[in-house]
C-alpha cells in the first residue's frame, strides 16, 4: 500500500470515527418525552416555578410578592396570571414573559377584611369578575357579609358594579366564562346558564339547561371540564344525566357551543366521579377515578365519541391530572412537592419531578419552550 493510500484510509477511518462520536454526543430524546413546552406552577414559599418540559429541570422562577400564590387564573391571551394569595385578600397580576408582578390590589381596608374567593379576567383584561365576602371586626363581634359578585375595573382600580345573584340565591363561588370577543359573560348556575352583556351587565338571555335537550331525556348536569385546552367559546367536559323514568344516572361527554347554545352530548356509561383533562389535540381526554386504595386512569376518545378504557395504577391520595404539551405523558400533581410522570399510552410510571416547595396552584402546561415563553417580555 502506498503512503498516499495509507493516508487516505487513515483519514477515512478518522472521519467515520468522528461521525460516530458526533452521533453519540447528540442528545437522544428521553423515553416518554413529554414535549418541548413549559410547566409553570405556584409553590411554597412564594413563587411560581418554571420547568423546562424537555429536560424536566427548573429553569426559573416568578417571584410572588403578596404571600403564597393560590387560586390562579390564566388570561385569555395566556400572557398573565391573575392569582389570589392564600389569605384571599390580595390579587396579584403576573406577567409571565417578564417574570414579574405588574399589578396587585386588595379590597380590604381598616377593620374590614374582604376575602376574594375567585377571579376571572375578561378577554381584553379591562376588568375582572370576582366573588368576594367581607368580615368586619366590630367592638363586640365580627359582621360577616354575604358573598357578592362584583366587577372590578383594572384601570380605575375600584369596584364599578355589583351583579345581583340569579333568583337572589347566594353562591360561594361562580363559574364564569366569557365569549371569545368578551362581549358576553356566561354565568353557570346549577340549573341554567345566564348570559349577560358586558357593557352594562344586564341579562340578555337565559339558556335553560335544566330542560331536557330532547324528549324523554333527563336534564344534564355539568361535571369536570378542562378550560385550558378547550377552544374559546366552547365548554367540553363530563356531564351527568338521569332518565326521568328509572332515574338511572349516566355519564357522558358534552361539547357545549356557548354562542350557538347547542349541546353535543353522548353517553359513555353509568355515572362515576371522574376528573377530566383534555389532550392539546382535543382528540382524546383522560380522567382520574379515585377511591380509597383504588386509582384508575380513564381514557375518552373524543374523536370517535367513545370510552377508550380504564387502567388501574398505583396512584396517591389526592391527585390532579394534566397532559403534557405533546399529549404523550400524563402529569400527576397536587399535594406535596412532586409531579409524577406516566406514559399516556401504557400508563406506566416513568419518573418524578421533585420541586423545592409544596405546590399551591394549578399546573399550567404551555406548548412553547421556556425561551419562547420569555421572549415576548417587554
Amino acid at each position: 500500500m502506498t503512503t498516499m493510500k495509507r493516508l487516505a484510509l487513515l483519514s477515512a477511518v478518522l472521519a467515520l470515527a468522528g461521525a460516530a462520536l458526533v452521533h453519540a454526543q447528540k442528545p437522544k430524546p428521553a423515553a416518554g418525552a413529554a414535549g418541548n413546552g413549559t410547566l409553570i406552577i405556584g409553590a411554597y414559599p412564594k413563587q411560581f416555578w418554571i420547568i423546562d418540559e424537555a429536560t424536566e429541570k427548573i429553569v426559573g422562577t416568578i417571584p410572588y410578592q403578596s404571600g403564597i400564590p393560590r387560586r390562579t387564573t390564566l388570561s385569555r391571551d395566556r400572557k398573565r396570571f391573575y392569582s389570589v394569595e392564600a389569605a384571599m385578600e390580595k390579587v396579584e397580576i403576573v406577567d409571565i414573559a417578564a417574570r414579574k408582578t405588574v399589578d396587585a390590589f386588595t379590597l380590604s381596608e381598616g377593620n374590614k377584611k374582604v376575602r376574594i374567593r375567585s377571579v376571572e379576567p375578561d378577554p381584553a383584561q379591562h376588568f375582572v369578575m370576582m366573588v368576594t365576602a367581607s368580615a368586619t371586626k366590630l367592638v363586640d363581634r365580627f359582621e360577616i357579609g354575604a358573598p357578592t359578585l362584583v366587577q372590578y375595573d383594572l384601570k380605575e382600580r375600584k369596584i364599578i358594579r355589583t351583579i345581583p345573584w340569579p333568583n337572589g340565591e347566594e353562591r360561594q363561588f361562580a363559574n364564569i366564562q366569557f365569549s371569545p370577543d368578551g362581549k358576553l359573560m356566561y354565568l353557570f348556575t346549577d340549573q341554567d346558564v345566564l348570559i349577560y352583556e358586558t357593557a352594562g351587565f344586564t341579562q340578555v338571555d337565559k339558556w335553560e339547561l335544566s330542560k331536557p335537550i330532547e324528549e324523554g331525556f333527563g336534564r344534564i348536569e355539568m361535571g369536570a371540564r378542562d378550560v385550558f385546552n378547550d377552544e374559546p367559546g366552547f365548554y367540553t367536559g363530563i356531564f351527568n344525566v338521569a332518565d326521568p323514568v328509572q332515574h338511572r344516572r349516566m355519564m357522558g361527554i358534552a361539547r357545549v357551543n356557548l354562542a350557538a347554545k347547542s349541546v353535543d352530548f353522548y353517553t359513555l356509561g353509568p355515572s362515576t366521579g371522574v376528573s377530566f383533562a383534555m389532550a392539546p389535540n382535543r382528540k382524546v381526554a383522560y380522567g382520574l377515578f379515585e377511591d380509597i386504595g383504588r386509582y384508575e386512569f380513564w381514557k375518552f376518545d373524543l374523536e370517535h365519541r367513545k370510552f377508550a378504557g380504564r387502567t388501574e395504577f398505583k396512584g396517591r391520595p389526592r391527585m390532579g391530572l394534566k397532559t403534557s404539551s405533546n399529549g404523550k405523558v400524563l402529569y400527576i400533581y397536587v399535594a406535596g412537592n412532586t409531579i409524577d410522570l406516566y406514559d399516556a399510552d401504557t400508563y406506566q410510571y416513568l419518573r418524578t419531578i421533585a420541586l423545592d416547595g409544596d405546590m399551591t396552584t394549578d399546573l399550567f402546561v404551555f406548548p412553547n419552550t421556556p425561551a419562547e415563553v420569555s421572549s415576548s417580555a417587554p
Partner: protein
Amino acid sequence: MNHLKSVNRKAVRVERATEPDVVALQRTGVPQAAHFPLGCSLVFSPGWEADRTGGTAGLCQPVERDLFDCHIGCYWPAQVPDQLNHAPDWTAKCAAAQKDWRKIDLVFP
C-alpha cells in the same frame, strides 16, 4: 331521638344539612360519601387523620404531603395551625413539608 335544639342560624343550617343523612341501599349513581357536619369554620370535616369514610387509607401518604395544603386551606384548623389568623408564618422556614418538616415552626396556644 333529637337531644339538641338549634338556637342560632348556623345551627339551623347544620341541622338542615344533616337531614338527608340516611342513604338507601339502592345505588343510583356516584356512591354517597359520609357527611360530617362539624369541623372548622370553612370546611366541615372529621378530625386530623381521618378520611371521608372515617378511616385512614384515603389520607395523603406520607401525611406531610397534605400538611401545607391544610395550613393554607384551613382544612383542619384545630390540628394544623391556620394561616389566616394565628400562624401566617408557620411554614416560612420550610417550603416542602415532606423534605424538611423539622424546620416547621412550633406553635404554642
